[in-house]
Structures are given as C-alpha cells and as structure tokens.
C-alpha cells in the first residue's frame, strides 16, 4: 500500500533537513551541507514493511511554487494522504508564505479533500524567548489562515526531540490499524508486568503504537482516564526522547561500521529491554518491578514475535 506525503513550504524552511534526519539517519550537524531542492524530489520510503511512504519533497522557491499551483496542479495534489507544510518561525515573508499556503490548501481541497494537513512551525531553536508565547501566536495565526479545515500544528526543531513527536503523530494517521496494535501491546505489557510497551518503526524509530491509550495532542481538553500509568507520572516527552536517543546512538554505531541491534538496561529507576519485534519494528519494554529480569522480558518478546508479524500483515492488507 502506498501513501503520498507532500512536504511543502517556503524555500529554506527546512523540509529537506528534516527528511534527511528522519529517513536517512543523518545527524542534525550535517544538514548545513544540503543544497536547495530543485523542483520535486520523490522518495519511496518503505515504512513498516508493506506500507510505502511516497515522499514528495517540493522545492520551495517561488518559480516552483507557481508551477505546482498552475501547470502541475493535478499531478501534485492528486491522491495525497498527508500534506506537511513547513513554516520557518523566523520567516521574513510571512504574508507571502501564508498566501502560498492558502493556495496549496485550495489545491488540496480540489484534488484530495480527504488528506490530513499538518503544519510544522520549524526552527524553534532559533525562536526568540519566551518561545512558547512566540509559538502560540504563530499557531493562532496559522489556524486562522487555515479556515474551517482541521489542521494540526507542531513546533519543531532538528536539534531536539520535537521533530520526532511531530512525525510520530503524522505517521500514526497513516497506519491503518494502529488501534489494534495498541490493544495487543497492552495485552503484551500485562504479560510482562511492564509499566509500558512502545513499538517503534525500525529505520526511522518513529513511534507506531504504545500500550497505553494516547490522547491526541490536538485535544488538550480531553479528559485522561486515571489509569495505572498515570500513577507513575512518567515524563511526557519520553517517546520522542527515546527516538532521538536511539537514532543518535544508531548513527554512532554506523560510524564504526557496526549496526545497532538491541539494548537492555537495569538502571536505578527502571529495567528496560529494546529489541527487534518484527522485521521492521522494535519494541521497548519498560518495567518498574525490580524482581523482573531482562532475560524474562527477552523471552517474552521472542514468544510474541509471530503474533505481531501476523498482526502487521493483517493490518496492512485491509
């Protein structure tokens, strides 16, 4: 199954940088070497085995934008699953950016009315203090510009975990049966006496599903149920921090021509095992019970592998 993902935004807003970071395992420090994208760069990224993300990285210079909106209009905006529009937080020409953005929304509405729209307010590391005020102001401005269409806005930076948070929610909308995976992870967590189980995609280390019910970030008012997990008051940024940490370590491994394979930790505060679940996923099991050994967790993961391979196959056929 193929999903088309449009990556749009003004020239120099950081589209290619984030693509290289998430999908090519390059560190943030190397993004300065990237040149401007000419026209559209298409990439097929195999994500979760049979799900293929067809990434259209659209160069943002005016000449290209004009052509996307006129002559190439139908090619660009047809069959879109997700459109990601990137704004530079310190952009000089916000009015022009917004104008192009509205035009793109128009095109999307015409050819792919079902597509989800994500807005990334990027380069948050460069924002002036107080950052959250600057971001909130920008967010309101963008929501106004979007009209009645539902959009999700994230503040991101390639230098911290925020980019993983945004992209994890984006791919979450593309996975057809994420809730089924979630339910099975909850069962698996109970079998391991684990506090939490998280499933990651293998190459990108984006979060696919977790054992706990995730309240969508777009609904801040949603009442979270008092679950067992709430008692632990775990760090709310833990998933994306994990993605970032493991990605960074994978990169260190690749520099010495090794490949990261698995990790187990018995630390003061918790025990954890990170291991392959299926051919294209990794699972992280977090346990707070000190009597549980990592070997037992590893055995459980091995036992669960077949079930999850099946589930993944099922979810992608539908």
């Amino acid at each position, binding site marked *: 199954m193929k999903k088309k993902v449009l990556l749009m935004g003004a020239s120099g807003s950081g589209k290619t940088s984030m693509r290289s970071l998430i999908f090519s395992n390059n560190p943030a420090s190397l993004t300065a070497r990237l040149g401007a994208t000419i026209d559209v760069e298409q990439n097929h990224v195999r994500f979760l085995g049979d799900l293929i993300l067809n990434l259209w990285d659209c160069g943002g210079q005016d000449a290209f934008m004009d052509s996307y909106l006129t002559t190439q209009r139908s090619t660009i905006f047809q069959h879109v699953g997700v459109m990601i529009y990137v704004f530079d937080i310190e952009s000089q020409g916000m009015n022009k950016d917004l104008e192009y953005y509205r035009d793109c929304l128009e095109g999307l509405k015409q050819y792919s009315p079902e597509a989800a729209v994500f807005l990334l307010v990027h380069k948050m590391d460069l924002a002036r203090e107080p950052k959250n005020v600057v971001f909130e102001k920008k967010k309101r401005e963008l929501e106004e510009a979007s009209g009645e269409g539902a959009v999700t806005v994230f503040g991101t930076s390639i230098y911290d975990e925020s980019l993983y948070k945004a992209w994890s929610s984006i791919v979450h909308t593309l996975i057809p049966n994420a809730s089924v995976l979630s339910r099975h992870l909850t069962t698996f967590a109970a079998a391991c006496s684990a506090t939490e189980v998280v499933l990651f995609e293998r190459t990108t280390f984006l979060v696919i599903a977790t054992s706990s019910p995730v309240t969508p970030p777009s609904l801040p008012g949603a009442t979270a149920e008092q679950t067992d997990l709430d008692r632990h008051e775990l760090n709310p940024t833990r998933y994306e921090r*994990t993605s970032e940490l493991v990605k960074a370590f994978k990169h260190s491994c690749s520099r010495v021509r090794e490949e990261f*394979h698995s990790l187990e930790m018995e630390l003061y505060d918790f025990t954890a095992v990170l291991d392959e679940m299926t051919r294209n996923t990794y699972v992280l099991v977090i346990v707070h019970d000190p009597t549980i050994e990592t070997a037992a967790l590893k055995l459980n993961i091995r036992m669960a592998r077949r079930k999850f391979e099946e589930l993944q196959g099922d979810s992608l056929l539908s």
Partner: protein
Amino acid sequence: MVNGPPSYAATSTTLPRTQRPPLNGHKSLSGDGVTRTKILLLGLRRAGKTSIQQVLFNNLPPKQTFYLETTMRIVKHTFDTVIPLEIWDCPGNITVETLGAPLSQFATMIFVIDIRDLYNQPISKLVEFIVAAYQANPDMSLEVFVHKAEKLQEDDKIENFRQIHERVSDRLLDIAPEYEQVQLNFHLTSVYDHSLHEAFSKVLHKLVDSLPYLEDLLNVFCANSQSPKAFLFDTTSRLYIATDASPVDSATFNLCCDYLQMLNSFGTLYKSAAADARRPLPTTPPPSASSTSSPSRGPTASDPGTPTGTEGTSTPNATTLRPSRDLFYPSASTSLHPSTPGTTLTYHLITPQLALLALLPTSVYEGRRGLIEFNVVFFREGVQEISQVEKEARTGG
C-alpha cells in the same frame, strides 16, 4: 576465566600507602578538608576555556556554549572523580602576577588557543606562562589545547595545528636553549566531537597516581573475559580514567562515549513517581546529569562502602570496603551487528562516579554472562579499594 582473583590480589598488594609517591605541594587542602589536585585553565579571551569546563563537567550542550558569558574573575570549579579535582577557570587577561597563587601549586596547566589564532599574542602569553611554570615546578605537565578545530577544514586544521606547535617551540628556543627539554603536549580539540574528552582524559591520566593499578585491573579483566577493549569511565564527564593495555582507537572511544551519553540520558527518562525507593541504592544520586560539581558535597558522602562522617577516623576496616551484597549497581548492554561473531558493549557501574565499559564477543557475553559478572564484581572491589586508599591519603594526610 576464573583465575581473576589471584592476579587481582597481586595487584592490590602493590598498594601499601608507604610506597605511594608523597603528596606534592601542588595538591592543597580545600574548604571541605580534601586535598584536591589543581588544574589551571588559561588562554586568551574567547579561546574557549569556560566552554571546555562547562561541556566536560556541567553537561552543557556544545551548541549552548555560544551563550556563555565572558569570565571576569578566576572561578574555581571542583569535580570529584577518581581523584578530587579543582579547576581554575581564569579570565583572558590573567598574568602570572595577578593569578594570586604560586604556580607551583598546580599539577597541570592547560593553555587553550583558538585554532584560527596564529598571531603573536596567544603564543607570547603561552610562552610567558610556560617559562614561569617551568621555573616554579619543572614537573608540572604542560598541555596545549588547540581548540575550536571544527571551524576549519581538515587540511587547514592540520596545517594550523602544526604551525602553532612550531611557533611555540621556536619561541621557547629563542629565549634559552635549556627550554628545549620542556615537555609540551599539544592536543587538537573541539567541543562538538569527542576529541575534547579524549584530550582531557590524557591530561587526567598523568594526575592519577593509582593509574598503573587501575590499568592492571583492567588488563586482568580483559584477559579473563576475552574482552578486546575496556575503559573505566567517569560517568558524568565521560572522561576515561584508565583503559587496558591495547591501543585506544578513537572510533571505539567515540562509540563508548556516545553509549555512555545515551545511558545517562535514559537514566531518568522513565523514572516513575509511584515506584521510587524500589532499589537498595548506594547512597548516591543515579548516574545522570545531576550536578556533581557542587563543591560542598565531598567524597565522604559518595562512596557506598564508607561509613558516614569518616573524616579523621583513620580505621580502614577491611570489611567496610567490601560492598554489601544488597547494594544495587546499574548495568546495561547493547549488542551490535553485523560483525562476526558480533560485539556486545557492556556497562557496569563500579563506584558512584565510575563505570566499566567493555567490548565483548556476543557469544561470550550470552554464553558465560555469570562469569563476566563475577569478574566485574572482582574488578569493582579492586577499584573501590584503590579509591578508598586514595581518599584516606587525601583526607587524613
């Protein structure tokens, strides 16, 4: 694999206090009653002295060093690792006269030069300090960090490094031929990669009197565990205190450094509010980014095997040195592919500040994990005994 104990015993018997080199004048008693080894950090304004200190000992992200303010007066930072250190971060305009302390007090002088700064000024300043230091204490180790290496391309980097080296040597010779024998060590460093950690580790090695014994312990561990390489790291600063006899390859060191950084970050990430006090902890903070540089918290509170308030009580009872069985020491391992037969990188906390990182063949780690852990326990006891002796020498003497 189990012939660890005899050789371990052999190394520890070489440690009677009488054979230790006497404490020199360059270690002085500081406020908390501990004799600290002093390191002088010099260099022109904006050379990167404070950045170096903050990145190494305060976990400052390298990108944030840009925002550091100019140091206006001497700041003394204390740091407790295998030995207690006191690092003097000096302002750029300091001179031998305005330092306010005799140079002979210092065990090491580190001079930081911006790699793009080939001009007269930093080199004159450096030469001035070298001459003064050499006269005050010919045994002081003199280190030059050619810093901000990331600013230049590979070729220019080597060229500038060589030029700075050459100019300093020439200038020293011009002053007097006797300065030819001054031992100067040059390091190419940058806060953006691990070169700074490697360089500072080498500086630190010269200050640790017990280094040969630690190295022996590591050699014994490696030989008995089929480990091709093992490091004893300080967990917060990610400096390596000692390693086994096999040559250090930068790539492996970098990997260990990154691994330690990842584990430090994971340390508190999944901390649970509901399940605290679940482990019988050694009386210390976890190996995370917590501040270890706070001066008041001396080593008296940080060794797991020490009875509290030992200051002055010079009764080194052998039983108190042994970690009791129920203390929990964090450990971790990661397996790497695809090199055959596969490598596992292990982490074992040894003392509250130090951790053993070892590369092991995956087959050995998986097949004979119990024996590896047995070896780690012996290694830990050895290192703890050495730290104990070191501490007694510094608080009692």
